[in-house]
């Protein structure tokens, strides 16, 4: 059995890193992102990768995401995902 270290856990002091950031995305009829709206509209010129994550199915809000790794017209790379639970788009560093 693991012994109690006596240290206070203080979970409130732990901060998450790389939380997904909601973003407005224009998608084509197939559901593939074509433009991202942040401060201005930026066109997605290429989708380089696509994958799906289904995890934590035991939780009340299971994780079900469809990720796209793409490139913007400015040359910037970005990763977007669509939350299949609420159909919202998010931006996240991979």
């Amino acid at each position, binding site marked *: 059995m693991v012994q109690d270290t006596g240290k206070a856990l203080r979970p409130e002091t732990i*901060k998450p890193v790389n939380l*997904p950031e909601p973003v407005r995305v224009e998608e084509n009829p197939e559901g593939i992102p074509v433009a991202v709206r942040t401060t201005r509209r930026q066109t997605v010129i290429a989708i380089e990768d696509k994958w799906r994550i289904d995890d934590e199915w035991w939780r009340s809000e299971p994780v079900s995401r469809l990720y796209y790794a793409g490139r913007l017209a400015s040359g910037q790379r970005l990763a977007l995902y669509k939350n299949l639970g609420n159909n919202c788009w998010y931006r996240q560093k991979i």
Partner: protein
Amino acid sequence: MKILCVLLPHFPLRCELMRHPGIIERPAMVTYTVGSQKLILDYSPELQGIQRDMPLQQALSVHGDVELLHAAVPHYWSVFNKLLDALEKKSPLVEGAELGDVYIGLEGLHLLYPDDAVMVSAIREAIPAAFDAHIGIAQGKFPAYLAALHSPPGGYKAFTGDIATFLKELSCDLLPVSLKSKERLHDFGLHTLGQVAVLLPGPLQAQFGTEGKRIWELANGDDDTPLYPRMTEEMLEENATLPSVTTSLDVMLMALEAMLSHAFTTLGPKGMGIRRITLWTRSWLSEHWECNIQFKEPVMTTKTALSRIKQVMENTPQPGPVEQLGMKITGLARQHGRQKGLFSEVRAKDHLLDDIRQLEFRLGGPQLYKITEVEPWSRIPERRYALKPLSQ
């Protein structure tokens, strides 16, 4: 070294008489408090059977009808320091050993003061007549002290040659050595300096150790104790009389804060900080309370100084309701950096943690974080790492 000794007998009492001239005709005792006990600090010379440090109750049983005065030690030192300032204009080597005892170095002053009489009259000019100064001149502190002790009123006594004859009949109790040694001298039947002087130094050393040699030298009129002239130190003094007597710590702290702020208006532009504060209060019954506060590093702000003062005042209760309070600020110094250790990398982490904890304490929560792996294998990006406070 040729030394002039000035003795100002009953100095505390004479300071009080200067402050309260109305009681000059009445016998008086000056008392001080140790714990709950009141002891005698000084008394009128005509009161026979009274000794310094005697309990007040005992003294009152001998002389009941006397004027009682509470000692105001800061005031006595203030008067004494002014007197030393005046004496420093006559000689640069002035030592204020105790309240009322002054030693002055006379080396090299013969060009200014051709003989002892001129020197003594110059010294007397610097001392108010009310203090009834006794002046003695000799080679060494102890002979000069004895000369002053036996000087005629208004005059002086100087030892130039052999003083053994003069010392012969004086009591061993005058020796500036420990009480235990004096008692042992009496136990050996040695009651006068002459009886000690005729002995060989060897037996005295055998009985009294290193002090034995000193006893023998002093009894022969030799004293090579160096003169310790006053060090000039910049000092600020602040004091205030409260509008009404108070026991409230908050009121006292407000007054002290105002004094500190005033002091920092002088020190701030010079970039100076405070290393030492002597706090004092005077209760409405004239009881004196004093406390020294040392700072590890020079404090540069009122807030920092006040937090330490508050801590000290909370832990040391006042003797009674306070009427007057003040502070003496010394050890003025510039702010300095922290000394780095030779093996800095060994302690660097500890120092960093100390600084981080202080920052957290001041700003009320974690301020610096490090990235920690939580589930680096997770497919969900935000589950892989987390920010953990550096201090944990």
